[in-house]
Protein backbone atom coordinates (compact mmCIF):
# COMPACT_ATOMS: atom_id res chain seq x y z
CA UNK A 1 0.00 0.00 0.00
CA UNK A 2 1.28 3.44 -0.93
CA UNK A 3 0.53 5.93 1.85
CA UNK A 4 0.75 8.78 -0.68
CA UNK A 5 -2.21 7.27 -2.50
CA UNK A 6 -4.15 7.09 0.76
CA UNK A 7 -4.28 10.87 1.03
CA UNK A 8 -7.46 12.63 0.06
CA UNK A 9 -7.56 14.49 -3.25
CA UNK A 10 -8.48 17.61 -1.30
CA UNK A 11 -5.32 17.56 0.78
CA UNK A 12 -3.17 16.61 -2.19
CA UNK A 13 -4.56 19.56 -4.12
CA UNK A 14 -2.89 21.86 -1.61
CA UNK A 15 0.67 22.02 -2.83
CA UNK A 16 3.51 22.48 -0.38
CA UNK A 17 4.13 26.21 -0.14
CA UNK A 18 6.87 27.47 -2.44
CA UNK A 19 7.86 29.75 0.36
CA UNK A 20 9.06 26.83 2.47
CA UNK A 21 12.44 26.76 0.73
CA UNK A 22 12.87 30.43 1.51
CA UNK A 23 12.09 29.94 5.19
CA UNK A 24 14.53 27.02 5.34
CA UNK A 25 17.15 29.47 4.09
CA UNK A 26 16.13 32.00 6.76
CA UNK A 27 16.35 29.43 9.55
CA UNK A 28 19.79 28.40 8.30
CA UNK A 29 21.11 31.96 8.55
CA UNK A 30 23.99 32.51 10.94
CA UNK A 31 25.06 35.47 13.03
CA UNK A 32 24.64 38.92 11.63
CA UNK A 33 21.44 38.02 9.83
CA UNK A 34 18.28 39.98 10.49
CA UNK A 35 14.83 38.55 9.91
CA UNK A 36 11.88 40.86 9.34
CA UNK A 37 9.85 37.93 8.13
CA UNK A 38 7.83 36.44 10.97
CA UNK A 39 4.29 37.72 11.35
CA UNK A 40 4.03 37.71 15.12
CA UNK A 41 4.65 40.25 17.88
CA UNK A 42 8.21 40.40 19.22
CA UNK A 43 6.83 41.53 22.58
CA UNK A 44 6.51 38.93 25.30
CA UNK A 45 2.94 38.59 26.64
CA UNK A 46 2.37 41.33 29.27
CA UNK A 47 3.31 40.11 32.74
CA UNK A 48 -0.18 40.46 34.27
CA UNK A 49 -1.47 38.01 31.66
CA UNK A 50 1.36 35.52 32.20
CA UNK A 51 0.86 35.83 35.95
CA UNK A 52 -2.85 34.99 35.55
CA UNK A 53 -1.91 31.87 33.57
CA UNK A 54 0.61 30.82 36.21
CA UNK A 55 -1.91 31.45 38.98
CA UNK A 56 -4.51 29.29 37.27
CA UNK A 57 -1.98 26.44 37.13
CA UNK A 58 -1.12 26.90 40.80
CA UNK A 59 -4.81 26.69 41.62
CA UNK A 60 -5.00 23.39 39.77
CA UNK A 61 -7.19 24.64 36.89
CA UNK A 62 -5.92 21.97 34.54
CA UNK A 63 -9.17 20.49 33.26
CA UNK A 64 -11.33 20.92 30.16
CA UNK A 65 -13.45 24.02 29.90
CA UNK A 66 -16.95 24.06 28.42
CA UNK A 67 -16.74 23.50 24.64
CA UNK A 68 -17.46 27.12 23.78
CA UNK A 69 -15.02 28.36 26.44
CA UNK A 70 -15.52 29.53 30.03
CA UNK A 71 -18.59 31.72 30.35
CA UNK A 72 -16.50 34.27 32.24
CA UNK A 73 -14.24 34.62 29.20
CA UNK A 74 -17.13 34.74 26.74
CA UNK A 75 -18.69 37.50 28.85
CA UNK A 76 -15.43 39.48 28.88
CA UNK A 77 -15.12 39.03 25.10
CA UNK A 78 -18.62 40.49 24.64
CA UNK A 79 -17.84 43.42 26.93
CA UNK A 80 -14.58 44.06 25.07
CA UNK A 81 -16.16 43.99 21.60
CA UNK A 82 -18.90 46.35 22.76
CA UNK A 83 -16.43 48.71 24.45
CA UNK A 84 -13.90 48.80 21.60
CA UNK A 85 -15.89 48.26 18.40
CA UNK A 86 -19.58 48.75 19.30
CA UNK A 87 -20.40 45.09 18.58
CA UNK A 88 -23.01 43.41 20.79
CA UNK A 89 -23.18 39.65 21.25
CA UNK A 90 -24.81 37.23 23.66
CA UNK A 91 -22.10 35.29 25.52
CA UNK A 92 -24.34 32.21 25.79
CA UNK A 93 -25.23 31.73 22.14
CA UNK A 94 -23.03 33.90 19.95
CA UNK A 95 -19.43 33.28 21.04
CA UNK A 96 -17.05 30.34 20.65
CA UNK A 97 -13.52 30.46 22.07
CA UNK A 98 -11.13 28.81 19.62
CA UNK A 99 -7.53 27.71 19.25
CA UNK A 100 -6.37 30.98 17.72
CA UNK A 101 -8.14 32.96 15.03
CA UNK A 102 -7.07 30.35 12.48
CA UNK A 103 -9.33 27.70 13.97
CA UNK A 104 -12.23 30.15 13.93
CA UNK A 105 -11.74 30.75 10.19
CA UNK A 106 -11.61 27.00 9.56
CA UNK A 107 -14.74 26.41 11.66
CA UNK A 108 -16.69 29.14 9.93
CA UNK A 109 -15.83 27.82 6.46
CA UNK A 110 -16.63 24.22 7.40
CA UNK A 111 -19.90 25.27 9.01
CA UNK A 112 -21.03 27.17 5.91
CA UNK A 113 -19.68 25.47 2.82
CA UNK A 114 -21.05 22.51 0.86
CA UNK A 115 -18.97 20.94 -1.91
CA UNK A 116 -18.85 23.25 -4.91
CA UNK A 117 -19.97 26.37 -3.03
CA UNK A 118 -17.93 29.42 -3.82
CA UNK A 119 -15.87 31.36 -1.31
CA UNK A 120 -14.68 34.80 -2.32
CA UNK A 121 -11.26 35.83 -1.05
CA UNK A 122 -9.61 39.19 -1.76
CA UNK A 123 -5.88 38.89 -2.46
CA UNK A 124 -3.13 39.42 -1.34
CA UNK A 125 -4.23 37.78 1.90
CA UNK A 126 -3.31 35.63 4.85
CA UNK A 127 -2.40 32.23 3.40
CA UNK A 128 -4.82 30.17 5.50
CA UNK A 129 -7.96 31.55 3.84
CA UNK A 130 -7.44 29.76 0.56
CA UNK A 131 -6.26 26.48 2.04
CA UNK A 132 -9.03 26.33 4.63
CA UNK A 133 -11.60 27.03 1.90
CA UNK A 134 -10.16 24.24 -0.25
CA UNK A 135 -10.19 21.85 2.72
CA UNK A 136 -13.87 22.75 3.20
CA UNK A 137 -14.47 21.67 -0.42
CA UNK A 138 -15.16 25.19 -1.57
CA UNK A 139 -14.41 26.62 -4.97
CA UNK A 140 -12.22 29.64 -4.27
CA UNK A 141 -12.86 32.84 -6.23
CA UNK A 142 -10.17 35.45 -5.67
CA UNK A 143 -10.59 39.21 -6.00
CA UNK A 144 -7.39 41.13 -6.68
CA UNK A 145 -6.61 44.22 -4.61
CA UNK A 146 -4.07 46.61 -6.05
CA UNK A 147 -1.45 49.03 -4.77
CA UNK A 148 -3.11 51.97 -6.54
CA UNK A 149 -6.19 51.38 -4.33
CA UNK A 150 -4.02 51.06 -1.22
CA UNK A 151 -4.75 47.31 -1.39
CA UNK A 152 -8.32 47.94 -0.28
CA UNK A 153 -11.18 45.82 -1.59
CA UNK A 154 -12.79 47.50 -4.60
CA UNK A 155 -16.60 47.09 -4.38
CA UNK A 156 -17.04 46.67 -8.14
CA UNK A 157 -14.45 43.92 -8.33
CA UNK A 158 -16.21 42.23 -5.43
CA UNK A 159 -19.55 42.54 -7.25
CA UNK A 160 -18.04 40.84 -10.30
CA UNK A 161 -16.80 37.95 -8.14
CA UNK A 162 -20.15 37.23 -6.47
CA UNK A 163 -22.48 34.61 -7.91
CA UNK A 164 -25.58 32.77 -6.73
CA UNK A 165 -23.21 30.04 -5.49
CA UNK A 166 -21.21 32.41 -3.27
CA UNK A 167 -21.53 31.11 0.26
CA UNK A 168 -18.94 33.22 2.03
CA UNK A 169 -16.64 36.19 1.60
CA UNK A 170 -13.49 36.23 3.73
CA UNK A 171 -12.31 39.72 4.62
CA UNK A 172 -9.04 40.36 6.40
CA UNK A 173 -8.64 44.01 7.37
CA UNK A 174 -6.32 45.30 8.77
CA UNK A 175 -4.50 43.17 6.26
CA UNK A 176 -1.74 40.68 6.57
CA UNK A 177 0.37 41.13 4.38
CA UNK A 178 -0.31 44.68 3.13
CA UNK A 179 -1.19 46.63 6.29
CA UNK A 180 -4.22 48.06 4.46
CA UNK A 181 -7.29 49.06 6.47
CA UNK A 182 -10.88 49.73 5.33
CA UNK A 183 -12.59 52.86 6.72
CA UNK A 184 -16.28 52.92 7.59
CA UNK A 185 -17.07 54.81 4.37
CA UNK A 186 -15.12 52.32 2.27
CA UNK A 187 -16.79 49.38 4.00
CA UNK A 188 -20.20 50.99 3.43
CA UNK A 189 -19.70 50.59 -0.33
CA UNK A 190 -18.72 46.94 0.16
CA UNK A 191 -21.81 46.45 2.32
CA UNK A 192 -24.03 47.85 -0.45
CA UNK A 193 -22.68 45.19 -2.80
CA UNK A 194 -23.04 42.39 -0.26
CA UNK A 195 -26.64 43.35 0.50
CA UNK A 196 -27.44 42.12 -2.97
CA UNK A 197 -26.21 38.60 -2.21
CA UNK A 198 -26.75 35.86 0.36
CA UNK A 199 -23.06 35.52 1.20
CA UNK A 200 -21.94 35.33 4.81
CA UNK A 201 -18.92 37.48 5.65
CA UNK A 202 -16.12 35.92 7.65
CA UNK A 203 -14.36 39.00 8.95
CA UNK A 204 -10.86 38.30 10.25
CA UNK A 205 -10.17 41.20 12.62
CA UNK A 206 -7.15 39.82 14.47
CA UNK A 207 -5.23 43.03 13.81
CA UNK A 208 -8.08 45.38 14.80
CA UNK A 209 -6.17 46.84 17.76
CA UNK A 210 -3.18 47.52 15.53
CA UNK A 211 -4.80 50.39 13.63
CA UNK A 212 -2.87 53.64 13.54
CA UNK A 213 -4.09 57.25 13.57
CA UNK A 214 -5.74 58.81 11.69
CA UNK A 215 -7.42 55.45 10.92
CA UNK A 216 -9.75 53.74 13.39
CA UNK A 217 -10.91 50.16 13.12
CA UNK A 218 -14.42 49.58 11.83
CA UNK A 219 -15.94 46.11 11.91
CA UNK A 220 -18.22 45.25 9.01
CA UNK A 221 -20.50 43.58 11.58
CA UNK A 222 -21.27 47.02 13.00
CA UNK A 223 -23.45 47.75 9.91
CA UNK A 224 -27.03 46.80 10.88
CA UNK A 225 -27.62 44.95 7.61
CA UNK A 226 -24.47 42.86 8.12
CA UNK A 227 -24.88 41.95 11.76
CA UNK A 228 -26.82 38.74 11.14
CA UNK A 229 -24.62 37.59 8.30
CA UNK A 230 -21.14 38.23 9.60
CA UNK A 231 -18.89 35.99 11.64
CA UNK A 232 -16.33 38.17 13.38
CA UNK A 233 -13.03 36.40 14.02
CA UNK A 234 -10.71 37.94 16.57
CA UNK A 235 -8.22 36.79 19.16
CA UNK A 236 -5.37 37.52 21.49
CA UNK A 237 -2.32 36.65 19.38
CA UNK A 238 -1.63 40.01 17.80
CA UNK A 239 -3.28 42.53 20.12
CA UNK A 240 -2.04 41.01 23.40
CA UNK A 241 1.15 39.38 22.06
CA UNK A 242 -0.18 35.90 22.87
CA UNK A 243 0.60 33.88 19.74
CA UNK A 244 1.97 30.86 21.58
CA UNK A 245 -1.06 30.58 23.88
CA UNK A 246 -3.20 29.68 20.87
CA UNK A 247 -6.42 31.45 21.76
CA UNK A 248 -8.93 33.32 19.67
CA UNK A 249 -12.68 33.51 19.21
CA UNK A 250 -15.56 33.89 16.81
CA UNK A 251 -18.80 35.82 17.31
CA UNK A 252 -21.85 36.02 15.13
CA UNK A 253 -25.37 34.76 14.44
CA UNK A 254 -26.39 32.06 16.95
CA UNK A 255 -27.20 29.33 14.40
CA UNK A 256 -23.82 29.69 12.68
CA UNK A 257 -21.96 29.82 16.00
CA UNK A 258 -23.85 26.73 17.22
CA UNK A 259 -22.75 24.89 14.08
CA UNK A 260 -19.16 26.07 14.53
CA UNK A 261 -19.25 24.94 18.15
CA UNK A 262 -20.45 21.51 16.99
CA UNK A 263 -17.34 21.08 14.81
CA UNK A 264 -15.11 22.56 17.51
CA UNK A 265 -16.56 20.14 20.07
CA UNK A 266 -15.60 17.08 18.02
CA UNK A 267 -12.34 18.33 16.56
CA UNK A 268 -10.83 20.25 19.47
CA UNK A 269 -13.07 19.69 22.53
CA UNK A 270 -12.18 23.02 24.10
CA UNK A 271 -9.48 25.69 23.95
CA UNK A 272 -6.53 25.50 26.37
CA UNK A 273 -7.71 26.21 29.91
CA UNK A 274 -4.58 28.08 31.01
CA UNK A 275 -4.81 30.35 27.99
CA UNK A 276 -8.46 31.07 28.76
CA UNK A 277 -7.64 32.23 32.29
CA UNK A 278 -4.83 34.38 30.90
CA UNK A 279 -7.18 35.83 28.27
CA UNK A 280 -9.72 36.86 30.92
CA UNK A 281 -7.00 38.91 32.61
CA UNK A 282 -5.93 40.36 29.25
CA UNK A 283 -9.41 41.73 28.57
CA UNK A 284 -9.92 42.98 32.11
CA UNK A 285 -6.74 44.84 32.86
CA UNK A 286 -4.36 45.23 29.95
CA UNK A 287 -5.62 48.19 27.91
CA UNK A 288 -2.55 50.23 28.89
CA UNK A 289 -0.14 47.48 27.84
CA UNK A 290 -1.90 47.16 24.49
CA UNK A 291 -1.76 50.92 23.98
CA UNK A 292 1.98 50.93 24.75
CA UNK A 293 2.64 48.13 22.24
CA UNK A 294 0.54 49.86 19.58
CA UNK A 295 2.43 53.14 20.14
CA UNK A 296 5.74 51.30 19.73
CA UNK A 297 4.54 49.57 16.54
CA UNK A 298 3.44 52.93 15.19
CA UNK A 299 6.93 54.41 15.72
CA UNK A 300 8.54 51.44 13.99
CA UNK A 301 6.01 51.67 11.16
CA UNK A 302 7.01 55.28 10.50
CA UNK A 303 10.70 54.36 10.59
CA UNK A 304 10.22 51.55 8.04
CA UNK A 305 8.00 53.55 5.66
CA UNK A 306 10.44 56.47 5.78
CA UNK A 307 13.45 54.20 5.16
CA UNK A 308 11.76 52.25 2.37
CA UNK A 309 10.93 55.47 0.54
CA UNK A 310 14.46 56.78 1.06
CA UNK A 311 15.62 53.48 -0.49
CA UNK A 312 13.77 54.54 -3.64
CA UNK A 313 10.85 52.13 -3.32
CA UNK A 314 7.30 53.37 -3.55
CA UNK A 315 5.10 52.43 -0.65
CA UNK A 316 1.58 53.40 0.37
CA UNK A 317 1.02 54.35 4.00
CA UNK A 318 -0.11 51.13 5.75
CA UNK A 319 -2.35 52.08 8.66
CA UNK A 320 -2.84 48.63 10.16
CA UNK A 321 -1.24 45.38 11.34
CA UNK A 322 2.58 45.35 11.55
CA UNK A 323 3.53 45.09 7.91
CA UNK A 324 4.85 47.41 5.24
CA UNK A 325 4.32 46.23 1.66
CA UNK A 326 6.60 48.21 -0.65
CA UNK A 327 6.69 48.01 -4.44
CA UNK A 328 10.07 46.58 -5.46
CA UNK A 329 9.53 46.61 -9.24
CA UNK A 330 11.89 49.61 -9.65
CA UNK A 331 14.76 47.22 -8.87
CA UNK A 332 13.90 45.11 -11.92
CA UNK A 333 13.65 42.00 -9.71
CA UNK A 334 10.71 39.70 -9.10
CA UNK A 335 9.48 39.36 -5.53
CA UNK A 336 11.19 36.01 -5.10
CA UNK A 337 14.48 37.14 -6.67
CA UNK A 338 14.47 40.29 -4.58
CA UNK A 339 14.01 38.35 -1.33
CA UNK A 340 16.54 35.65 -2.14
CA UNK A 341 19.18 38.14 -3.31
CA UNK A 342 18.55 40.49 -0.39
CA UNK A 343 18.91 37.54 1.97
CA UNK A 344 22.10 36.28 0.35
CA UNK A 345 23.79 39.64 -0.10
CA UNK A 346 22.64 41.61 2.91
CA UNK A 347 21.45 38.84 5.23
CA UNK A 348 18.03 40.39 5.73
CA UNK A 349 14.89 38.28 5.40
CA UNK A 350 11.64 39.76 4.11
CA UNK A 351 8.83 37.78 2.48
CA UNK A 352 8.02 37.79 -1.26
CA UNK A 353 4.63 39.41 -1.84
CA UNK A 354 3.51 36.75 -4.31
CA UNK A 355 3.40 34.24 -1.43
CA UNK A 356 0.12 35.96 -0.49
CA UNK A 357 -1.46 35.71 -3.93
CA UNK A 358 -0.93 36.91 -7.48
CA UNK A 359 -1.43 40.66 -6.90
CA UNK A 360 1.43 40.53 -4.38
CA UNK A 361 3.96 39.97 -7.19
CA UNK A 362 6.26 42.97 -7.40
CA UNK A 363 5.98 43.61 -3.66
CA UNK A 364 7.61 42.33 -0.49
CA UNK A 365 6.27 42.08 3.05
CA UNK A 366 8.40 43.71 5.71
CA UNK A 367 7.29 42.91 9.25
CA UNK A 368 8.16 45.53 11.86
CA UNK A 369 7.43 43.40 14.92
CA UNK A 370 11.14 43.53 15.65
CA UNK A 371 13.38 45.69 17.83
CA UNK A 372 14.02 49.20 16.53
CA UNK A 373 17.78 48.45 16.46
CA UNK A 374 17.24 45.49 14.11
CA UNK A 375 14.80 47.48 11.98
CA UNK A 376 17.17 50.42 11.61
CA UNK A 377 20.10 48.17 10.69
CA UNK A 378 17.94 46.22 8.21
CA UNK A 379 16.74 49.46 6.61
CA UNK A 380 20.33 50.66 6.31
CA UNK A 381 21.12 47.42 4.46
CA UNK A 382 18.01 47.85 2.29
CA UNK A 383 19.18 51.28 1.20
CA UNK A 384 22.60 49.84 0.35
CA UNK A 385 20.92 46.97 -1.55
CA UNK A 386 18.65 49.15 -3.69
CA UNK A 387 21.27 51.88 -4.31
CA UNK A 388 22.90 50.05 -7.20
CA UNK A 389 19.72 48.56 -8.56
CA UNK A 390 17.31 51.44 -8.98
CA UNK A 391 18.11 53.38 -12.13
Amino acid at each position, binding site marked *: MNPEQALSRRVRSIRP*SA*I*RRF*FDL*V*NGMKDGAI*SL*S*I*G*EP*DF*VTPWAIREAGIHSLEQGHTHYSPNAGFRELRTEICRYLDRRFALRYDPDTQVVVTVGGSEAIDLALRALVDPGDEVVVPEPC*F*VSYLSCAVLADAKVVTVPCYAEDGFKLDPERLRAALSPRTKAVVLGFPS*NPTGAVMSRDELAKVVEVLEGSDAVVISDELYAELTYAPATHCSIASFPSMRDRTVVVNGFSKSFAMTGWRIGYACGPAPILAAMNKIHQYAIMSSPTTAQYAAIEALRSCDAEVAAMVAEYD*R*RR*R*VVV*DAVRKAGLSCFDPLGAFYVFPDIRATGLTSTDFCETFLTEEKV*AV*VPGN*AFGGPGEGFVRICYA*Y*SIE*NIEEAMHRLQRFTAGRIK
Partner: protein
Amino acid sequence: MGIRETILGLLEKDSRLTAERIAVMTGFPEAQVAAEIAAMEKEKVILAYGAVVDWEKTDRDPVTALIEVRITPQRGQGFDRIAHRIYSYPEVKSCYLMSGGFDLMVIIEDASLKSVARFVSERIAPLDSVISTATHFILKKYKMQGTEFAPKSEDDREALFV
Protein backbone atom coordinates in the same frame (compact mmCIF):
# COMPACT_ATOMS: atom_id res chain seq x y z
CA MET B 1 -0.44 63.24 24.33
CA GLY B 2 1.28 66.45 23.20
CA ILE B 3 4.56 66.78 21.36
CA ARG B 4 6.54 67.41 24.56
CA GLU B 5 5.23 64.35 26.37
CA THR B 6 5.80 62.25 23.25
CA ILE B 7 9.42 63.41 22.96
CA LEU B 8 10.05 62.97 26.69
CA GLY B 9 8.59 59.46 26.66
CA LEU B 10 11.05 58.48 23.93
CA LEU B 11 14.07 60.23 25.46
CA GLU B 12 13.39 58.73 28.87
CA LYS B 13 13.81 55.29 27.28
CA ASP B 14 16.72 56.18 24.99
CA SER B 15 18.46 59.48 25.57
CA ARG B 16 20.64 58.99 22.48
CA LEU B 17 17.73 59.48 20.09
CA THR B 18 18.39 62.40 17.78
CA ALA B 19 15.77 64.94 16.78
CA GLU B 20 15.91 63.45 13.28
CA ARG B 21 15.07 59.93 14.49
CA ILE B 22 12.35 61.18 16.83
CA ALA B 23 10.85 63.12 13.92
CA VAL B 24 10.69 59.97 11.78
CA MET B 25 9.19 57.92 14.61
CA THR B 26 6.51 60.43 15.54
CA GLY B 27 5.70 62.25 12.32
CA PHE B 28 6.45 65.68 13.86
CA PRO B 29 8.73 67.94 11.76
CA GLU B 30 12.39 67.59 12.70
CA ALA B 31 12.86 71.34 13.27
CA GLN B 32 9.94 71.38 15.70
CA VAL B 33 11.31 68.39 17.63
CA ALA B 34 14.75 70.01 17.86
CA ALA B 35 13.23 73.29 19.04
CA GLU B 36 11.13 71.57 21.71
CA ILE B 37 14.12 69.62 23.02
CA ALA B 38 16.22 72.80 23.20
CA ALA B 39 13.40 74.63 24.98
CA MET B 40 12.91 71.81 27.48
CA GLU B 41 16.63 71.73 28.23
CA LYS B 42 16.58 75.49 28.83
CA GLU B 43 13.49 75.26 31.04
CA LYS B 44 15.07 72.36 32.97
CA VAL B 45 12.24 70.03 32.05
CA ILE B 46 15.07 67.82 30.79
CA LEU B 47 17.66 67.92 33.54
CA ALA B 48 20.29 65.45 32.33
CA TYR B 49 20.95 62.61 29.92
CA GLY B 50 22.35 59.38 31.36
CA ALA B 51 22.75 55.65 30.91
CA VAL B 52 21.51 52.72 32.98
CA VAL B 53 24.70 50.81 33.86
CA ASP B 54 25.22 47.35 35.27
CA TRP B 55 28.41 48.20 37.17
CA GLU B 56 28.77 44.59 38.30
CA LYS B 57 29.99 43.76 34.81
CA THR B 58 32.81 46.28 35.09
CA ASP B 59 35.96 46.64 37.18
CA ARG B 60 34.19 49.23 39.27
CA ASP B 61 31.44 47.78 41.44
CA PRO B 62 30.20 50.45 43.82
CA VAL B 63 28.08 49.82 46.90
CA THR B 64 24.61 51.31 46.96
CA ALA B 65 22.73 51.99 50.16
CA LEU B 66 19.27 53.34 50.96
CA ILE B 67 19.30 55.42 54.12
CA GLU B 68 16.12 56.26 55.92
CA VAL B 69 16.59 59.52 57.79
CA ARG B 70 14.23 60.86 60.46
CA ILE B 71 14.64 64.58 61.02
CA THR B 72 13.13 67.48 62.95
CA PRO B 73 11.87 70.09 60.50
CA GLN B 74 13.31 73.55 61.07
CA ARG B 75 11.17 76.58 61.74
CA GLY B 76 10.37 78.46 58.55
CA GLN B 77 12.43 76.11 56.40
CA GLY B 78 10.61 72.80 56.74
CA PHE B 79 12.67 69.90 55.49
CA ASP B 80 14.25 71.69 52.55
CA ARG B 81 17.28 73.18 54.30
CA ILE B 82 18.36 69.98 56.00
CA ALA B 83 17.68 68.02 52.82
CA HIS B 84 19.92 70.47 50.95
CA ARG B 85 22.72 69.92 53.48
CA ILE B 86 22.49 66.19 52.82
CA TYR B 87 21.95 65.96 49.07
CA SER B 88 24.75 68.40 48.29
CA TYR B 89 27.33 65.67 48.94
CA PRO B 90 28.35 64.08 45.62
CA GLU B 91 28.00 60.58 47.13
CA VAL B 92 24.23 61.17 47.34
CA LYS B 93 22.68 59.90 44.09
CA SER B 94 19.05 60.57 45.02
CA CYS B 95 17.19 62.20 47.87
CA TYR B 96 13.43 62.17 48.39
CA LEU B 97 11.06 63.58 51.01
CA MET B 98 8.81 60.72 52.06
CA SER B 99 5.47 60.18 53.74
CA GLY B 100 5.27 57.50 56.42
CA GLY B 101 7.68 56.30 59.09
CA PHE B 102 10.71 58.40 58.13
CA ASP B 103 11.33 61.69 56.36
CA LEU B 104 14.15 61.49 53.86
CA MET B 105 15.15 58.59 51.63
CA VAL B 106 18.79 59.12 50.74
CA ILE B 107 20.40 56.90 48.14
CA ILE B 108 24.16 56.73 48.36
CA GLU B 109 26.68 55.18 46.04
CA ASP B 110 30.24 54.75 47.27
CA ALA B 111 33.28 52.54 46.85
CA SER B 112 32.79 50.23 49.85
CA LEU B 113 30.55 49.29 52.79
CA LYS B 114 33.03 50.99 55.05
CA SER B 115 32.96 54.27 53.18
CA VAL B 116 29.15 54.28 53.16
CA ALA B 117 29.10 53.57 56.91
CA ARG B 118 31.58 56.36 57.45
CA PHE B 119 29.53 58.76 55.36
CA VAL B 120 26.43 58.03 57.42
CA SER B 121 28.16 58.26 60.78
CA GLU B 122 30.29 61.29 59.97
CA ARG B 123 28.12 63.34 57.59
CA ILE B 124 24.47 62.57 58.24
CA ALA B 125 24.07 61.32 61.83
CA PRO B 126 25.86 64.28 63.47
CA LEU B 127 23.57 66.89 61.91
CA ASP B 128 21.50 68.62 64.61
CA SER B 129 18.14 67.99 63.01
CA VAL B 130 18.75 64.32 62.37
CA ILE B 131 16.95 62.15 64.91
CA SER B 132 17.94 58.74 63.55
CA THR B 133 19.16 56.86 60.48
CA ALA B 134 18.67 53.31 59.21
CA THR B 135 20.98 52.08 56.47
CA HIS B 136 19.99 49.33 54.01
CA PHE B 137 22.52 47.98 51.55
CA ILE B 138 21.39 46.85 48.11
CA LEU B 139 22.46 43.24 47.53
CA LYS B 140 21.33 42.79 43.96
CA LYS B 141 19.72 44.99 41.32
CA TYR B 142 16.95 43.31 39.32
CA LYS B 143 15.43 46.32 37.64
CA MET B 144 16.26 50.03 37.60
CA GLN B 145 14.52 52.92 35.81
CA GLY B 146 12.30 50.45 33.97
CA THR B 147 15.25 48.40 32.74
CA GLU B 148 15.72 44.76 33.74
CA PHE B 149 19.29 43.77 34.58
CA ALA B 150 19.05 40.27 33.11
CA PRO B 151 16.66 40.66 30.20
CA LYS B 152 15.92 37.94 27.69
CA SER B 153 17.69 39.75 24.89
CA GLU B 154 17.88 37.19 22.11
CA ASP B 155 15.12 37.05 19.57
CA ASP B 156 14.91 33.26 19.34
CA ARG B 157 11.75 33.02 17.24
CA GLU B 158 11.94 30.38 14.51
CA ALA B 159 11.17 31.61 11.03
CA LEU B 160 7.61 30.54 10.33
CA PHE B 161 5.26 31.56 7.57
CA VAL B 162 2.28 33.45 9.01
